């Protein structure tokens, strides 16, 4: 981890202001001090329940939303120093819903060619040739060229989405739940396609998912998020097969594929607390089976435990001293 990371996110925050009638403003902390690093050619999976800020993170990285705090660096350069068009040539995204993310009135070939058309500088012929080549790469047969999205299956649509995202030859691909809208049998195909493309183009993936078995399949590193904060971050082996944070344990225990020993020990009850007024202290306290007094008072910092980072007072060396340890 000594070289410059390809993507570096430091202390990223995104706060939405909510205006409520008669009750003044409220703030939703969608992202709260998120930090991680991603090396070139690797895959980082972001895991968490819905509403934990995964998609906000994707939007900030796609520059669809402006972060309210923190820093993003791509190849060592600050996000603010990179013109947005250049950013989008390097960072692209695959959307969750393959239905609404394709313009229903455009043909497949035009959908895939759209980024090239907008980028400009290519002849009509060149655009067509490139789009066709990309179709072949993602496994779409040439006869789909002239079809409209509604004539395609979900898997085929998502292939169109992937082809479109890759045609500008980006280096970082943000996959926002890319297969969650697909049938299980198709999920594996698309996932394998993504992994093949990663090898071929040397892509770096930020893979957002709530499906732990997918994550186990594709990720190098795993980041577990809860209420906009990082709970646990480390390599796949460490986080998924030797989880330390009670939340990670609970997530894994709810999944039949993972460590049977965890089964039944921990179950997640209730729902995420409202991000409108998050609890003071640890965000997970309201559902944590091992909650302590200090959890209700102080937010645990990210701390290195068994070669991964974990934010839990169970592992803070001296909980009363935790304020001294600054988050990474």
């Amino acid at each position, binding site marked *: 981890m000594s070289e410059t990371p390809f993507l570096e996110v430091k202390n990223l925050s995104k706060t939405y202001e909510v205006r409520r009638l008669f009750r003044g403003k409220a703030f939703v902390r969608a992202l709260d001090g998120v930090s991680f690093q991603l090396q070139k050619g690797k895959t980082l999976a972001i895991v968490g329940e819905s509403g934990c800020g995964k998609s906000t993170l994707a939007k900030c990285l*796609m*520059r*669809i939303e402006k972060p309210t705090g923190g820093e993003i660096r791509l190849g060592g350069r600050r996000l603010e120093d990179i013109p*947005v*068009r250049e950013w*989008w040539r390097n960072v*692209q*995204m695959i*959307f*969750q*819903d393959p*239905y*609404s*993310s*394709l*313009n*229903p*009135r455009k043909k497949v070939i035009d959908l895939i060619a*759209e*980024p090239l058309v*907008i*980028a400009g500088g290519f002849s009509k012929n060149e655009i067509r040739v490139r789009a066709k080549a990309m179709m072949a790469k993602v496994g779409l047969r040439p006869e789909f060229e002239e079809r*409209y*999205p*509604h004539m395609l299956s979900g898997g085929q649509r998502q292939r169109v*989405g992937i082809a*479109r995202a890759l045609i*500008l030859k980006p280096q970082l691909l943000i996959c926002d739940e890319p297969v969650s809208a697909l049938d299980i049998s198709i999920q594996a195909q698309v996932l394998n396609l993504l992994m093949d493309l990663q090898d071929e183009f040397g892509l770096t993936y930020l893979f957002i998912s709530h499906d732990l078995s997918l994550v186990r399949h594709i990720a190098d590193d795993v980041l577990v998020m809860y209420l906009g904060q990082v709970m646990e971050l480390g390599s796949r082996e460490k986080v998924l097969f030797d989880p330390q944070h009670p939340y990670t344990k609970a997530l894994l225990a709810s999944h039949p594929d993972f460590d049977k020993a965890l089964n039944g020990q921990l179950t997640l009850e209730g729902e995420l607390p409202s991000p409108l007024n998050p609890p003071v202290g640890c965000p997970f306290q309201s559902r944590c089976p091992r909650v302590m007094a200090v959890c209700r008072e102080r937010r645990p910092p990210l701390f290195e435990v068994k070669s991964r980072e974990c934010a839990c007072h169970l592992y803070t060396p001296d909980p009363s001293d935790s304020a001294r340890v600054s988050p990474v």
Partner: protein
Amino acid sequence: MSSGGAVESPMTAPSSFGEFWFVFSRNRGAVVGLAIVALFAFLAIAAPWIAPYDPALISDGALLKPPFWSEGGEPGFWLGTDDVGRDLLSRLIYGARVSMAVGFLVVVVSLAVGTLLGLVGGYAGGWIDAVIMRLMDILMSLPSILLAIVVVTVLGQSLVNAILAVSITVIPGFVRLVRAQVLVEKSKPYVIASRTFGAGPMRQIFINILPNCMAPVIVQGTLGFSDGILNVAALGFLGLGAQPPTAEWGTMLSDARSFIESAPWLVTLPGLCILILVLGFNLLGDGLRDALDPRLQK
């Protein structure tokens, strides 16, 4: 897309014409409407060839002749003549010309302006949207015929000004419709995706969003036809629209109203023409809406 009610996208997939026609033709009212509109359109286009007389031709010997089926009717004047001896049938046929043209122009003007304002307001949001929408609220708060009268009074009495006036009163409907549609479309992932390829506002508005908003606009346009025809006829009746001797149904009604007892066909027939044509457009509009909106399909 086969999951029935769970489909939230109100998009009309670019269905083939055959598919559209299949749904449309099952709606009997819509087919009748289409037939009526087609008939009047034919009359309007072919007026010079099928009308037996010039609409302004005055026949001295034939004043207030009744239609041929009633007593005293002359075979030469099928639907009778008016108070100065002009053939009513010819005037009605030429009147179709005026009404179709009026309807068309009203729709073209208001649809163009309304769609543009709706697109800009919906896409830009913020104060631009607020200004446009408040202006439209003001227009909508005035009774449309009153507003049209004001506009005509300011601009002067003529058919062109009447068309302009009526167009203005129809604009808010289009603006609201298009804006609402744009608000739905612009937050869809395909628009956001396009933005991440670097698409600028022009491309977003006209290439991505507009085509996906068109189905309801086409329907509203068809209904706008009938609004336009009705309102211009009303202005004509009030003497603020087409001026004599133009054969316009509303003006004809107004000219003939003093003869309502002695020569009832003079008011009845132009009135029936307005009724039937407006009904035709409304039926057609309803049919189009049913055929273009997949949510209404069983």
